């Protein structure tokens, strides 16, 4: 999903936060600001992997009427030309299309018909390129992995600081598109420092042949630079962007003004990532000279 000759900036926003139209403008602003891939959240009522910031975004989006069908429509109407990854929780994927499936299958065999197929088919139709599903570990992922293979979508897995070696092998087999390297334990949320766990986490994935994107807690261009310098192929930024949406919403700011701030923040983060890439090349050149 990533171009391999420069670091990827991967922003996250919850679709429909704080409302459908504003959210569309915000996602488009991120693309203008240099997003390489966008993780677009489909809000679920029990987002157990999210901290207060993204949880707030999800509540606003749900109150604004976001549903899976509206989400697919949202994706279809977006005017962006970067890959879009759907970030959501498994129940929405599992449940999609079940009411039609059970109506059309009155023979009592509905239980075996259940599964991620209808959702993935619809996502492919809408033009999404992959999924991140934080409550779906490798143990339960086979049905979704199979559906993604059938419809040609990527399935991105998260590697946590606690993930042990035996699990890494399994995750490496399952993940496609990129691997989401969780920079620190806990839930999503912007932080003021960069976790020193990052370099260690990346080191463990040296021989994986998918790009490595680091997320959880990244907030500034400086963070992005350090993360990429430490070896990441991309940076994932959610809460720091959602904060801008939330603040604009609370202050009643015009959509264009908030969109401009998002685009500016995106440029800062992308520039930071590029600087980190440069630094890494220089370090590499020095190391090669010395070697």
């Amino acid at each position, binding site marked *: 999903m990533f171009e391999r000759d420069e670091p990827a900036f991967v922003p996250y926003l919850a679709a429909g936060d704080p409302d459908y139209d504003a959210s569309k403008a915000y996602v488009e602003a991120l693309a203008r600001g240099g997003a390489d891939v966008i993780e677009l959240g489909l809000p679920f009522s029990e987002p157990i992997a999210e901290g207060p910031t993204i949880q707030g975004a999800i509540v606003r989006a749900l109150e604004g009427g976001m549903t899976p069908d509206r989400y697919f429509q949202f994706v279809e109407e977006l005017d962006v030309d970067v890959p879009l990854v759907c970030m959501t929780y498994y129940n929405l994927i599992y449940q999609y299309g079940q009411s039609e499936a059970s109506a059309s299958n009155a023979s009592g065999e509905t239980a075996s018909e259940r599964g991620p197929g209808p959702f993935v088919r619809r996502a492919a139709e809408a033009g999404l390129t992959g999924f991140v599903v934080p*409550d779906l570990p490798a143990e339960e992922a086979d049905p979704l992995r199979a559906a993604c293979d059938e419809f040609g979508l990527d399935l991105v897995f998260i590697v946590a600081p606690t993930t042990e070696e035996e699990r890494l092998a399994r995750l490496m087999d399952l993940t496609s598109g990129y691997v989401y390297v969780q920079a620190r334990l806990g839930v999503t949320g912007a932080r003021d420092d960069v976790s020193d766990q990052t370099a260690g986490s990346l080191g463990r994935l040296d021989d994986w042949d998918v790009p490595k994107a680091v997320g959880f807690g990244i907030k500034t261009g400086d963070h992005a630079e350090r993360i990429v310098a430490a070896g990441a192929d991309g940076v994932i930024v959610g809460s720091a962007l959602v904060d801008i949406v939330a603040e604009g919403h609370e202050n009643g700011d015009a959509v264009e003004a908030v969109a401009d701030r998002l685009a500016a923040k995106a440029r800062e983060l992308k520039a930071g990532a590029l600087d980190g890439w440069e630094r890494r090349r220089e370090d590499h050149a020095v190391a090669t000279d010395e070697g």
Partner: protein
Amino acid sequence: MSDTQSGKFGEYGGQYVPEALMPAIEELTDAYERYVLNNEDGFVDEFRERLRDFGGRPLPLQYADQLSARYDTDVYLKREDLLHGGAHKLNNALGQVLLAKYMGKERIIAETGAGQHGTATAMAAAHLDMPCEIYMGETDINRQRPNVFRMRINGAEVNPVTVGRGTLKEAISETMRDWATTVENTHYVIGSIVGPHPFPVMVRDFHSVISEEAREQVQEQTGRLPDSVIACAGGGSNTMGAFHNFVGDDDVDLFAVEAGGSSLSVDETEGVAPNSASLSTGDEGVLHGARTKLLQDSDGQIMESHSVSAGLDYAGVGPELAHLVDEGRVTPVNVDDDTALEAFHRLSQDEGIIPALETAHAFGYLEEDHEDVGDVTIVNVSGRGDKDLETVIEETAQRDLETAVDMSVFDGMHGGM
């Protein structure tokens, strides 16, 4: 593979949790197999001993004279309300806190709805000298204040959860967030037979002492097995505890009584179910780490549930119970708020037992459908009602209940409650 190893009950169960928690889940599964199933280091012996000396087990199976006469059936009460702390919850809390200790964990967290599980966990943590934090929804804090005080007095922190409607569902999500941050030194004591494997089987095993005792006691006292066992079901922990050792006895009917709330209908657009009847009305889905029956809308968004009793007010149910219902082994029934309140007053007056509002649902079913329960029935008295007195006074004042004593003595008292 047995459910105890696989964590699957038919299609239900499993482990749907963030990757960061998977190593802890694996570590816990391993500890469960070693200590709980294989009694390594004498874990089970110590657990039993503490249940006896600290918890007060074994507990009586009491013949209920007035109810038996009223329903023309022999009614036996399994008195979990006499367990230390006032509810069955200590069986599980003590087991898990002790297990955390064996695992070398340093900190305990838990969620609570009615506050009974929080109280039991706080007590077990104090007893075993572990620091403890409890997450509790704001709505539940307001309607279960006595338990909030008890948790605090036992030395636990109580963290209010304000998102959503502020009940058990939100408290579980919040505790999972804490766990994702602190998983390396912290054990999450989940409060019912819900959550990812191994919680549903492990919590069931800790509570199965209820039916282990009851099965022996009823045979001693009547020379036979009961025709039925009745227990209320929120998440389903007292339920599976009371059922477990009867599941293989095909002639024993098992009734799981859910909260019918004010109505069995749902308001899809508002995302609200005015009941907590996920076994009777729910649909298969994934919540809080397991695939099970849930109250959800057609998109898969989880609904806010309702019950007059905080401990039943949950949109999900244990995967094992969901499976036993699908298999036809457990009959799901439900009782509405009014019937539960009537049963609360009836049991208090007729038998001198003030039941928890959760438990009152089980008795409400007996009143509504005692024709179905056979000649000998066991009702699990999952807990005592001291925690619910404020709620009962307030809720009774809003209704015209046949069974209530003259409530005017309480006038003006519940204003500040």
